[in-house]
Every structure is written in C-alpha cells, then in structure tokens.
C-alpha cells in the first residue's frame, strides 16, 4: 500500500511515519509540506492513500482536493475537531485527530486495505472529484455527476440526491472532468453522455437532449453538430 504524507509540520510527518512503520504493508512513497507540492506528488506517485492535514498555509487540504482531476482515497489528519466533523461529511475514508492514536490509525488502515482490495478487482479505479459549497464537502464518483449548470459565478452540480452550488466557474470544473464522459452542451450546461435518454431535433439543425432524470437541455447550434458526430446520428 503506497501512502503519501501531507503536512506542513515536519514533526507531524515524522510522527506519522514512525507510527506507519508498525504496519509492514504500508510504504511511505513521499511527503509533501504544502498543497502545490502534494498535488504534484499525488499525480506522479499515484498513492493508494493520502494522509492529508487540512490546515496548511497557502493552499489548505481542501483546496488541494478541489484542484485534483482525480481524488485519491484520503484520510484526513487534523488538530481541530470542527474540521474533523466536516471531513466526515466529505465521505473521506476516515479522519484522524492529532495527536494520532495508534489504534485509530490501524482502523483507518483497515478501511484503506478493504478499498484497495476492492479496486484491484477493477481494471482501473474510477475517477473521483471533490466538491464543496459553503458548508458541505463531497467526494463524488465522477460518472455519478449527471449535469452541471452555470449560475452566475457559481455552478450547480447535480449528482445522486444532491445539487450543491459550487463557487467555481463551469469552465474551471470542465477542465477536471473526463472529456470522454462529459459533453459541453452550451455556454451554461455540461451533460453526462451516459445520462442521455433521447435526442430531439430542433429547427435549424439544433438539438434538445432529454436526460434520464427527465430534464431537457438545449444544445447550442455549434455543439449540436459535434454531438451528432459523437453519437453518430
């Protein structure tokens, strides 16, 4: 199991590393002391688990996750209980409150082991994205996102039973999404191609798409041609 340790404090990283030495199957493949450094190492080292300190100077742990195209399994480490509660809502694997208790760490590692053994059955671990609005955070399976709508400077993201308003532009979010899975329908909409139930032609070569949820999305004229090609209509 490859682990990456992210914490701005060297002593905290050293302490966690010492605790992880007790677990023979865990290999610490790297350490990072800030968000930028961590993002690079996550992309390069493809760790099975990231131990992530939430409060860091500059880009903090949550901002780091927001920037990733694919969010790896995360165990949060935090000195503050309030962050811990938020992290729990995040559907992160687990969270550890500092000072880290060895038994709690073992329990967290068990969850990681379970997850890695599950994903080994799959050809490739499905991609995850990290979303947050003012209060809540989610780690979402990318293919579960059905629709993204631009609302001013915000974007409403529809997935499962949630549709939070994310303070990111549609363009920013588009750059994190898998282009094989998502399609830019117009200036204000991105749709999940797997969600398309039917396509209705409009005047002047335009298209309207009906999603599985019943929502209709107008496709811009320029994008209608692209969509026709992709769906080979």
């Amino acid at each position: 199991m490859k682990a990456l340790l992210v914490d701005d404090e060297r002593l905290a990283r050293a302490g966690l590393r010492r605790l992880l030495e007790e677990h023979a199957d865990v290999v610490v493949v790297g350490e990072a002391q800030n968000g930028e450094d961590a993002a690079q190492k996550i992309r390069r080292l493809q760790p099975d688990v990231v131990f992530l300190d939430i409060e860091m100077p500059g880009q903090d742990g949550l901002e780091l996750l927001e920037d990733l195209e694919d969010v790896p399994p995360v165990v949060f480490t935090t000195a503050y209980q309030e962050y811990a509660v938020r992290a729990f809502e995040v559907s992160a694997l687990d969270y550890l409150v500092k000072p880290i208790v060895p038994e709690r760490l073992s329990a967290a590692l068990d969850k990681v082991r379970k997850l890695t053994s599950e994903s080994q059955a799959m050809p490739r671990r499905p991609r995850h994205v990290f979303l947050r609005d003012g209060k809540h955070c989610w780690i979402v399976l990318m293919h579960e996102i059905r629709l993204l709508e631009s609302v001013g400077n915000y974007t409403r993201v529809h997935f499962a039973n949630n549709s939070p308003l994310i303070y990111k532009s549609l363009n920013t979010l588009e750059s994190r999404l898998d282009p094989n899975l998502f399609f830019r329908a117009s200036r204000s909409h991105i749709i999940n191609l797997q969600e398309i139930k039917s396509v209705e032609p409009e005047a002047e070569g335009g298209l309207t798409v009906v999603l599985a949820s019943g929502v209709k999305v107008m496709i811009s004229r320029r994008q209608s041609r692209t969509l026709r090609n992709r769906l080979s209509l």
Partner: protein
Amino acid sequence: MEVNPIQLAASLPRGSLYWRCQVFGWSAFSAFEFAFVMAFWGDQARIVFAAAFTGLVGLEGVAGTHLFHLLLRDRGWVRLPPKILAVRLAAGIFSLAALFSLLALFTRGFLAHAPLRQILKPMDFFVVFAIRMVILVIWTALYVAIHELQLRRHTERRALRLEVVVQEAQLRGLRGQLNPHFFFNCLNNLRELIAEDPRRAQKMVTQLGGLLRYSLRADQSELVPLADEIRALEDYLALESIRFEERLQVHWDIAKDAQSIRVPPMLLQTLVENGLKHGIARRPQGGEIAIAARLTEANVELEVLNSGELREPASGAGIGLRNARERLGLLYGDRATLVLQNGNQGRVSARVTLPLAPFEVAR
C-alpha cells in the same frame, strides 16, 4: 464590598462624633445658661444653685435630643421623604422645646423654693421656650446636615470601591493568556521530539514550564519589567520555532534603557502571537518576526513586525488585540495606544505606545 443603604443610614452619624458633638454642644449651652442665670439673679450666694440648675438643663438637653437621635436613626426618620420628615421634626422640636421649658422652669422654681404661681409666669415661659426652640432647630439642622454629608461620603466611597472591583474583574477577564491551541501544539510536537531528540524535548519542557509560570505569576493589573516579558517571549518563540522550524526567523531590537521599564505582562506576547497567527502561519515560505522596544521622551514604544499584509487595515483586530486594547484603556486611560497597520517591505506593524510617567493604575 457589599453595603446596603439601610445599614449605611443606621450607622450614621457615627457614635464618637455624635457624642463629642452632644457633650460639647450641651456644655456650651449650659455655660451660656449659667451666665444668663447669674446675670439675672446676680447673687453670688446662689452660685451653687445656678450651677446645679444649668447642669441639669444640660443633662436634660442631652437626654431629650438623644431621644430625637434614636427616633431619627433607629426609627428610620432620616430615610423619610423630606416633607414628612419636616412635619415630624417640627412637631418633635415643638413638643421637646415645650417639655424642656417646663422642666427648666420647674427645676429653677424648685431650686429657688419659689411658689407654683411664680414659677409659671407666661413671659418667663415664652423666653425660655424661644431659646430652646432656637437651640433645637440648630441641633436638628446640624444633625441632618452631618448625616447627609456622611451619607454622601459613604456613597462616593462605595461607588469608587465598586469601580475598582469592576476594573479588576475586567482586567482579569482581559488578561493576556496563553492560547490553549498553543499548548496543544506544543504537546503534539513534544510527543514527536521525545522520540527524535530527547535532549531538545527536555529543553522544551523547561521552556514551557517557565512560560507557564510567568503567565500565571503575573497579577494582571500589575506591571512587570520589560526584561521579564522579553525572557518569557524568548521561551515562547523557542517553542513556536519547534513548530515553524526554518519558516520562522526572529529579530530583536530592544534598547538597553528600555529593559527596566514596567509594562503590562503578556502584552508583547499577545502582539507576537498575533503576528505568528496572521502572518507567519499563513505563509508557506514563513517569514520574519521583529520585536523592538525603544524609549522616547515621554513614552516607551513596543513594536512587533511580521511578514505579511493586513487584509482590512482599519479594523484588522482579532480578540487578542481587542482585549489588549481594552486592557491598555483600563490601565492607562487614553494615554496608551495600540496601532496595527501595514508597514514597509511587506510587513505588518503592531505598535504599542505607553506613557513613562507615573501610571494611572486602576487601584
């Protein structure tokens, strides 16, 4: 100290003053009466009678007005509304004056072996009565005046004491305290250091102990020499350096003649903690904390500079600085200032100016 108004009124006028006034006043009156009687009778042979008579008159006066005193004090007349008090006093003075007059005339007649008809001459009675009325009015006026004066003095003293108590409570609430998060971080780091560098861990415990002792020792309304505060601050920064490591650089610039100046304890520490929290801790690359102290003609200037930038230059004060400001206000009135502003070279400056002249400490 709790003083309830009823107790306060009941204790007035205070015993010794009351009796001194009574003895002095009625002795003077007896002497006057003696001179008066002697002038009238003009008979050296009856001097003993005159003395006995005036002595009795004095004793009657003391006894009669003491009754008044008991009514005023123990029956609580002094706390009555002015109108009711005036009526009761008038009635009291009138009856007491009449009683005194009769007593005086009978005493005099008895001593002189005069027949009853001669004793009760209306003209005599009127003169004696008028004198006693005047005396009693003066007595009562003095009594009430002294009572009012003492009451006011007590009320003032009580208000002052209350103010001091409130200020002390405020100071206790505002005192510079070490942030619990700081202790928490220290303990977390200590846990790692014990394994990594036991010698350094031991030193850390010593520093933490010293700092804790300093923060507990200082009676917060008292001032400590700047040198003591600096020593505590050195411990504090050494402890924070364990967390920040190479991200924190510290520069000192303490003028020699400022070392012995007395300053509020934990004040400089608050400024430094603020600089670390809002400056250094937020910067991935860390930065510098510079601590300076210098004397001007009438003031001592303490300044903490930290790398960073103020987001809202006008307010930009968290609880720590707000408390520090209030504390300065309580200790020095408007003679001390705390200014937080963007300095040059990408630094934030927190500067405190304290007066050197004798402090208006709240006590």
